[in-house]
């Protein structure tokens, strides 16, 4: 039962990722694209967790943890770049 659920869920996440990618490529503004990448980070957390559930292993959780932790850093850097140009001042 769990495996079907995870399969179904990961299918949905994949669709979400594809839609994010669409937004990323289409834009139209740069902030749109930054948000799209950020959302892709979030979706990939879900995808990795689901992968771990499906395979019954915990070895991927750290990857998810790291994406959650670090994905925000690059989004923040992009935003800072848009605002100030110089990200470390």
């Amino acid at each position, binding site marked *: 039962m769990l495996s079907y659920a995870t399969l179904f869920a990961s299918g949905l996440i994949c669709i979400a990722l*594809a839609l994010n990618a669409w937004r990323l490529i289409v*834009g139209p503004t740069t902030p749109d694209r930054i948000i799209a990448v950020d959302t892709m980070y979030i979706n990939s957390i879900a995808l990795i967790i689901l992968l771990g559930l499906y395979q019954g292993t915990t070895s991927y959780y*750290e990857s998810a943890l790291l994406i959650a932790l670090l994905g925000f*850093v*690059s989004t923040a850097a992009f935003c*800072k770049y848009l*605002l100030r140009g110089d990200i470390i001042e």
Partner: protein
Amino acid sequence: MHYFWVPFLPMLGIIIPLLTNKFNRSTCALATALLPALALGLILFDLPAVLDGQAFTQSIEWIPLLGLNLSFRLDGLSVLFSLLILGIGLLVILYARYYLSEKDHMGRFYCYLIMFMTAMLGIVMSNNMLQLWFYWELTSISSFLLISFWSHSSDARKGARMALTITGAGGLALLAGIVLLGEVVGSYQLNVVLNSAELVQQHPYYLAILSLFLLGAFTKSAQFPFHFWLPHAMAAPTPVSAYLHSATMVKAGIFLLARFYPVLAGTEVWFVVVSLTGLFTLLLGAYTALFKHDLKGLLAYSTISHLGLIVLLLGLNTELAAIAAVFHIINHAIFKASLFMAAGIIDHESGSRDMRKLNGLWKYMPITATLAMVASASMAGVPLLNGFLSKEMFFTETLDQSILGSLSWLIPVLATIGGAFAVAYSLRFIHDVFFNGEPKGLTKTPHEPPRYMRVPVEILVALCLVVGIFPAYTVGPLLDSASLAVLNHPLPEFSLAIWHGFNIPLLMSGLAIAGGLAIYLNRKPLFRFEGLFPAIDAKIKFEGAIQACVRWAQKVNQTLESGSLQRYAFWLCFFALALIAPPLLDLDTTRGSQAEYPLNGAVAIAAVLLVAGSLATVIWSHYRLIALLMLSLVGLVVSITFAYFSAPDLALTQLSVEIVTVILLLLALYFFPQHTPTSKSRPSHFVRDLAVASLIGCIIGSICFALMTSPLDSISEFFIANAKTGGGGTNVVNVILVDFRGFDTFGEITVLGIAALGIYKLIARMRLSMRTKDHDGRLWATDKYPVLLSVISQSLLPLFLLISAYIFMRGHNLPGGGFIAGLITSIALIQQYLAHGVDWMTKRVSVSYHYFIAIGLVTAAITGLGSWAFGQPFLTSWFDYFSLPWIGKFELTSALVFDLGVYLTVIGATLLILANLGKLTTKERLTVGVR
């Protein structure tokens, strides 16, 4: 055997003159002579056995697979040459002690001289052809140094360069010949090669081998048309001329012919080419020598002529001719070395070498004059002197020739004419210098040299007489054994005697002497006739040719090296393509036998994302910020790919590196134009690049597919089996990094540290303008450090550090480790820079990031060295399990300390790069000299 040490003793001796140079000159000379004398003693010790006809070889294997052995050989020929090299070498050392002035650096001179001696000994004693070639080139180099010893003189420099170019080029030809010969025979050992004459001479490569060998020999021995370097090499100090250009180096080419006589000689081609070259050189040298006004110039051309004579003898198809050649090698070395030394004495004590100025020196230096006269007479071939004997043998052999068919009678006639010229120039040497009136325009009054400067000449002239009068008792046995080595089979009957009765050779000798006298008496009209020809300076021609070569090379270089990196990159890719593609054409199918995984939806979507991301990066590459966003999409999908295909460590690393790269590129982008100007490259270039890139992509994809679907025999089984037992960890990837391949990892973090330091230096003093508006012309926001970002970043810092510590600690057993933990910590700190700015961070982190790199590397190195303390190889890891109350059982391992080194280095390198790049816009930026 003792002789094995012979080539090594002078080699050790190279340094001695430099060490003893600070003592007085005689001490220096004495110390220099010590080891060659010892080597001479060793040769004499083995002499009796060699004279019995034995040949010894001895070798040490070096790279047996390539046929490279350190191998020495002692037979009659090498003994003969070794005696000449060491004996005359010792005399030259004594002579040079008095010849060199106070201003000359004596230690350096002796150093070069001994180096040359080593090289010559190496040539004559090598039993391996490649080794022989090595020494051969060493003689070219050391003779270059010796000729250019007076480097302040332009003539010396040019002469040295010419000698090096000609003999060096010949050396390359010789190398090619040796390699061909070695491949044909299947061995580079001389004792094998010398006995495979039949195999070699019937091989289709024989002509190529022969011509390459002859090129090598003729350039070295100054045979026509390569003879012109030798007169210009006379710019060298006279001891060098006496040693190199009479007795040894120019004989190396002859030695080569003699050494390979058993295997290369005996064919029609050999006889025709070698004898005609020798004959022509003999005549040309003898004729030109007569007209030289410079003493050493005369001797140089006479040397060329005598070398031609020896080569001619080696090219005559009788065995006795080869014996005569060996005999003349000995005789020529003796009388020519003494003549050069005498010429040096005259130059030294009268200040000139010009025969138009030097006249009537008899009354100023009667002893030297007598010695020089005896040696000249020997050169002319006067009876009772050694030169006469070999010349007589030479005349005998020319009579019995058929190589020129019905014109063969020309050979004895031309030989007699050459002999007549030899008599004429010898006469000129004697009469012009020692008699013929009074000296003209000399700067100083000539006088006898210091007592010991004359000793070497005296010894050599005495040898001329002794050999000339008692040939069979003195050089007979030596000549026998050397000839045996040259011919490689039992010798024919021959007799060494002064008197063979009235016969044709004697008549030829008489004619030569009479003719020479006649030529000399009629020299004035001859000189006038010679003066009608325009003077050709080989130096100018040679330099012109060299410069033409240089110009041509520059032209080619400028065409190829246009300075456009873009073009280089294209050609690099193009040739990579051209090299990789052909082997793939031979492969029948890329799909191997390995079972493949079925495709599923998630992977398909990921693939679509990857392709779309890459394509979008290319398409948006003109809008650089957006290209960066696309790139981060690719990075994300790549790390998910790693995770999906069972590589959690890689996923973690890729993820953190991706973040760091994005920050790096964003930092850099600030200083670059935001958009790439379009339409800059030509459409044809666009299509060309697209084609090359696509083809390479196809090839990489095909190789990748072939690789994955082919059955794999991996060495990884070992790592998996031993990770727990040998390395004490269950995460095999990490155990490989810190234990099995720890040395590689150590190298890699060193590279990382060096790269970071390089970047640090590049950042210093970088001047770039800052922009005040964004690309669309909007002013920057005024809020430097948004509060929300600052608060969240600061509060996340402990969490970051906690996670990085966790990842670090568990790395040995579960995905994680020093690399990843280091990157996470770096990102945490960079985030603080981002949110709070440089000033805020500088107040809190006062330590320089260099120290992180240094401490990290030192930690890793010490961990590695630590295993030495326990008698284990570098970087052997240690681990054990302990238990503590409350905490329970835990593992301690030395690999963890090594990993700590990795961790620190990664932090140091990353932050050194990013923080300093960030500081570029602040007052904390790097300036030169200030950290």
